[in-house]
């Protein structure tokens, strides 16, 4: 089984071990400038994304800003209803799962720890809140649980009465992680959990996430634009471009032998610590296309160095090869024939 489930994927696989998380053909369309008298312009933020995640795996989604990563994560958290497509948690469709039951399975860690903690609450109150919502344990047990969780994520117990404004960015992110883990979910959706942090703190938070994963048998959906973070964290990676997944597969294969021209450009964009080399030339100069008016055919063709004539007219098919998928005419044997 791959991190990515195709529609054709045999259902037997799910019968053996239910997937922790699955989306099928998920789309989200926003209507920009909609008024009651006019429909507005459709913006397809997420366009037919199918992916799946087994217990204990880490799936990373990478892509530029504006490619739909955050919208995808919001839908998978049940915070935004999808325009079409389905989400399954443990084999059950999300629409059938009660919000509270869902919350005990899936929890988020957000990007900005300065915005994800209520400034009027103490650290203890913030971490305890999910226990109160789900009415787990007595007051004493809840406080004990909060203290144990604070220790686990590397916060000092005396900080239980401090306010978020008294903590550093890294400490705040630890609080956000503690709040997510306190009700013992199976899946954590991390939306760029380190991108608002200092580089030195990033490593600490990533190590914390890794060790918590092993201790608590967690499944991560890890959203990032930082490829080195993805390489370090994930088992599978999916590359997203303008709302679609253009290439996916096991991290080592995608990172070492990228096939899609966009993935190749992304790999080139990783900065080396070597001074004097300058910025890498990645041939993506023409800028991110207007998502309100996406390019015809293959959405990547205006920026693609290998673009052919048919790329601007024919939408590429989704090709599956074992665990890997790709959407590109260069790798489509039928296109090569034509």
């Amino acid at each position, binding site marked *: 089984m791959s991190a990515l489930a195709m529609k054709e994927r045999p259902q037997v696989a799910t019968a053996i071990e239910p997937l922790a998380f699955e989306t099928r053909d998920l789309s989200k369309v926003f209507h920009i400038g909609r008024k009651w008298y006019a429909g507005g312009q459709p913006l397809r933020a997420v366009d037919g994304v199918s992916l799946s995640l087994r217990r204990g795996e880490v799936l990373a989604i990478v892509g530029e800003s504006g490619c739909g990563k955050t919208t995808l994560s919001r839908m998978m958290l049940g915070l935004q209803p999808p325009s079409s497509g389905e989400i399954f948690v443990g084999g059950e469709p999300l629409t059938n799962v009660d919000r509270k039951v869902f919350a005990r399975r899936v929890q988020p860690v957000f990007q900005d720890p300065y915005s994800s903690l209520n400034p009027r609450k103490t650290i203890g109150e913030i971490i305890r*809140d*999910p226990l109160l919502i789900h009415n787990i344990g007595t007051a004493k047990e809840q406080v004990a649980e909060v203290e144990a969780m604070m220790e686990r994520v590397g916060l000092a117990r005396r900080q239980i009465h401090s306010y978020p404004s008294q903590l550093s960015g890294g400490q705040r992110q630890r609080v956000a992680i503690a*709040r997510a883990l306190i009700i013992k979910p199976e899946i954590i959706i991390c939306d760029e959990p380190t991108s608002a942090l200092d580089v030195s703190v990033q490593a600490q938070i990533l190590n914390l996430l890794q060790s918590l994963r092993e201790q608590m048998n967690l499944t991560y959906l890890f959203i990032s634009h930082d490829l080195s973070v993805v390489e370090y964290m994930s088992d599978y990676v999916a590359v997203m471009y303008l709302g679609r997944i253009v290439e996916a597969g096991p991290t080592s294969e995608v990172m070492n032998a990228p096939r899609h021209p966009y993935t190749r450009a992304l790999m080139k964009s990783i900065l080396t610590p070597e001074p004097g080399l300058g910025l890498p030339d990645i041939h993506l100069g023409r800028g991110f296309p207007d998502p309100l008016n996406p390019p015809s055919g293959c959405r990547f063709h205006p920026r693609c160095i290998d673009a052919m004539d048919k790329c601007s007219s024919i939408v590429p098919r989704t090709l599956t090869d074992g665990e890997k998928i790709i959407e590109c005419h260069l790798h489509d044997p039928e296109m090569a024939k034509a």
Partner: protein
Amino acid sequence: MSTIVTRTAVSGAAPAGRSDDFDTLAPSPKALMRKRAKGHVGLIIGTTIIAVIVLMAVFAPLIAPYDPYAQDLSRRLIDPVWGAKGSWDNIFGTDALGRDVLSRLIYGARISLLVGFTAAVIAGIIGTALGILGGYYGGKVDAFVVYLINVKLALPVILVALSVSSISGGSIMALIILLGFLTWDRYAVVTRSMTQQMREREFIMSSKAAGASNSRILWREILPNLMNQVIIIASLDMALIILVEAALSFLGLGIRPPTPSWGLMVSEGRAVMFFKPYLIMIPGAAIFLLVIAINMAGDGIRDVTSPEGRG
């Protein structure tokens, strides 16, 4: 202070002795607020004046030298103590019916504070509830709230207050409810836009993802973040309400005589204002003092709390 107390309390409860238990902890927002409050002159002056007036109102029967209703036509229109024929018997003199002005002023503080405070609370509850609901739910709920705000803004406060109080007939209760219903718009406008901004913040998302109900989010996550602003608006609103009450009483449509009200006292002194100007100047000064004290305290609260309000 409080950080030290907190720290000893925690380490006492959990003598774990962690290696990272170093002794510096940034001051808590509350401690910072207290520190700013101590250095804020306007806040100190404003709250002191308010405290004096409140104490005066609460202990009016003990402080007032005379019965505010007792008339003595043989001792009418006596000058205050600094006047030509003034005496220490009636420090602020007597009015046209021979009633002691100081006693009436002390009892009048009760009316001004009662009306101002209660009406501001009523307006605050109405306005904040509407603002939060509109800002949080958006869509049709918000459209309705915006419609109500616009209707309210189109109403001329004094004119409506005049016409309604002339029908309802001047009971204090009716006046309070009327003023409460006429001044909620500022709360609604401010809380609505603040809630709109907050709704997209990630701590609200986290709470939703944790399975919190909408009412829990409104009460526990959003409302505490609005309280500072609501208190500031309440102070401004209270000052406005006290002025409107005085104006209505002056026009004869607010508090009915012989109840002592500052606005009514100005109105009653009007007939002799060229001969005995103190009769309108003393209650006028009292109104001025209370309103400016409330405004100073409100500004002070804003200055002291807003650095946290940002976050």
